[in-house]
């Protein structure tokens, strides 16, 4: 899951997400269609911003995926916050074909 800064418009958010998608795919992971929650109020202020675009991606990771992805997420200025969570194999209710990870 990641939070993108609210200054962008929908299209730029798509592009940003697309970048991470490329990273995952390039390093041997598979990405499911990202789930856009849209613009939401944050529960508290982060860097003087009160809202942000929430995007949830589920993906499988190749060997290098996590290192690369986390590095890029960290240096991206348009990502306010991100979190990668390992999902349990039993994770089903929304989505998954096999054990995967959600960048949160």
């Amino acid at each position, binding site marked *: 899951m990641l939070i993108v800064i609210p200054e962008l418009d929908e299209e730029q958010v798509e592009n940003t997400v697309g970048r991470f998608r490329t990273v995952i795919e390039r390093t041997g992971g598979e990405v499911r269609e990202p789930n856009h929650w849209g613009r939401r109020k944050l*529960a*508290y202020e982060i860097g003087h911003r009160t809202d942000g675009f929430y995007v949830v991606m589920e993906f499988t990771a190749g060997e290098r995926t996590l290192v690369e992805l986390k590095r890029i997420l960290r240096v991206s200025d348009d990502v306010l*916050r991100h*979190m990668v*969570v390992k*999902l349990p194999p*039993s*994770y089903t209710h929304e989505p998954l074909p096999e054990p995967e990870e959600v960048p*949160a």
Partner: protein
Amino acid sequence: MGRRRSGPPRGGRPVKSKPCVFCQENVAYVDYKNYNVLRRFISDRGKVRARRVTGLCPQHQREAASAIKRAREMALLPYVVGR
């Protein structure tokens, strides 16, 4: 930690143990993205509620607590309410 779980209530009204809501619904994974569900387990100050209040089983209480913490990290739930 879970010392006072069962056992006879001493004094006062007997404690009815109600089954854990997650067990009842067969929840295998307490998802931090379900912040509306998690909201039931925090106080109006934003603190995690004690097991004796939430009535969750030890496993689910633990999972709920970590889910709340993840949700806080992603600004889905507040760390502190008010002030």
